């Protein structure tokens, strides 16, 4: 994994600065911007999870929309059938549902690699999409299911309080907190002996087997962690969006997840985070700018893969390396 060539103390310092900046953001910009960033942070959690499989284990899934959607729909159904509306419950439900589905799908998928793995993940996510689409009575079909603003740690949105401000402050901090925890946790995971084993599997499956790492089992665990992260993201996304529809289960949304991970750079730890946030702004801008925003994003993607395959953070890393090698001024 290409690391940003800076000493750990500087990296930690940088990370703290960024978190502080993110924390004071709602006091500096208008609520719309903060909410927009919330979306970005949620997608960053999904991207972190996705990249555990792609960047660290070498498996390209085109079906991660399944776990995002499972998280979102699990929350929506908790609201619909159990009338529960606390974000804490949403988080727990989202994690559990996504973990169960990724354990099941992962068990099936990790027996394959490369293109068959990709197609199988795609097919399984389409199964879920078609179920959500057709079973109108349960899932609301293409209308989807509404999810009201949840209570956070017991505090509810006051009647008459502006939803946008509520989201931009309390919900944002909640998401930020979870994002920081998720990032720290994933950082530990990829730097753990388990994480090294995953990278070994990515680099050389046969040799990994021959140093005693049971490849299929480790891939399954990676799949499970990856899907759970993405499901948590889905659970956090749906109260922001207010609504969940089958679109987020469709394989083209999986493609988006792949897109923003690669945009940021799937060969680095921070790449997916940066990519998700940047993509969120890019898409919002594009949608507002032209009706042909899909084509615009397509052009960005093709250019990205042609000219900048290591993504934004890959390029940043390379530039930093060059600066270090240049003679001191």
């Amino acid at each position, binding site marked *: 994994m290409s690391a940003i060539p800076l000493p750990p103390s500087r990296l930690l310092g940088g990370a703290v600065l960024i978190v502080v900046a993110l924390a004071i953001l709602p006091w500096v910009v208008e609520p719309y911007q903060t909410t927009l960033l919330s979306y970005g942070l949620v997608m960053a959690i999904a991207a972190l999870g996705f990249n555990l499989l792609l960047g660290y284990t070498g498996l390209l899934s085109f079906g991660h929309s399944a776990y995002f959607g499972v998280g979102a729909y699990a929350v929506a159904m908790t609201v619909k059938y159990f009338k529960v509306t606390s974000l804490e419950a949403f988080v727990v439900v989202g994690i559990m549902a996504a973990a169960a589905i990724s354990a099941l799908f992962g068990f099936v998928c990790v027996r394959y690699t490369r293109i068959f793995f990709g197609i199988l993940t795609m097919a399984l996510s389409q199964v879920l999409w078609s179920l959500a689409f057709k079973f109108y009575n349960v899932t609301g079909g293409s209308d989807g299911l509404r999810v009201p603003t949840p209570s956070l740690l017991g505090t509810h949105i006051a009647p008459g309080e502006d939803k946008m401000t509520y989201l931009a402050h309390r919900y944002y901090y909640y998401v930020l907190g979870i994002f920081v925890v998720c990032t720290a946790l994933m950082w530990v995971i990829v730097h753990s002996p388990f994480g090294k084993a995953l990278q070994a599997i990515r*680099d050389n499956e046969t*040799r990994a087997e021959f140093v005693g790492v049971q490849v299929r089992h480790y891939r399954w665990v990676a799949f499970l962690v990856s899907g759970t992260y993405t499901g948590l993201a889905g659970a956090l996304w749906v109260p922001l969006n207010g609504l969940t529809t089958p679109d987020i289960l469709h394989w083209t949304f999986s493609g988006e997840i792949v897109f923003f991970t690669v945009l940021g750079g799937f060969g680095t730890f921070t790449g997916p985070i940066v990519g998700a946030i940047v993509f969120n702004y890019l898409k919002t801008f594009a949608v507002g700018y032209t009706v042909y925003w899909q084509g615009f994003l397509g052009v960005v993607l093709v250019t990205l893969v042609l000219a900048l395959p290591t993504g934004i953070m890959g390029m940043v890393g390379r530039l930093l390396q060059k600066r270090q090698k240049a003679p001191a001024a």
Partner: protein
Amino acid sequence: MTLLQTTQLTKYFGDTHAVDHVDFSVREGEVLALIGSNGAGKTTLVNVISGLIVPDSGSIRFLEAEITRASIHEKIAAGIARSFQLVNLFDKLTAIDNVALSIFARQGKTRRLFTLADADAAVRNEASGVLEQFGLLPKAAALAGGLSQGERKLLDVAVAYALRPKLLFLDEPTSGVSTREKAPIMDIITQVVRSERITAVIIEHDMDVVFTYCPRIVAMHQGAILADGTPDEIRSNEQVTANMLGTDRHA
């Protein structure tokens, strides 16, 4: 004491008798060479014993335990390890991480998700020690993919060695390396093997290497064992010289 014993071990690929009813044994502490022209079955034999390929018939016993159809994982746990002819490393990990992985796996620590690998001083020290034995310590922080061919061959062996096996198979440890590098590499390998008293089976094509370093030589031809003895015995064996020696000088 006999460490490994194969009995009538057989593997056919269609009509090709890759391994043909082979009775092969290795005693503890031996360093032996496995020679034969290309296609003789040496690598297939090692692949079967190490668990990459399942034999058609016959048996393999290791330390009195039946391991004929055991998985790769089980064979490693029993104490068998191997290096590869075409270097098989984790190219995007550093040299020390490559070796550390073997150690983590050996100690069952690869199951741990929530501890930092670099924080495990014991493993890091052991990995450094292994690298030093193989003369690779200066390159500890270099990515495996960026090392020279000779260094990669040594690292490949080091990764297998770090599993602390009882029986180590080395598949052409000097192939693909320039002639003047071969001796230093073999010196290091045999030094480690002897000082740690590891039993080693070395597949080799280079007869100079074989005669210099290996007190026992097993010659294979068309899937079967042709001869088995000391360098002198092998040199004077007409069948062996007819089939292999004299023309066999490729790297």
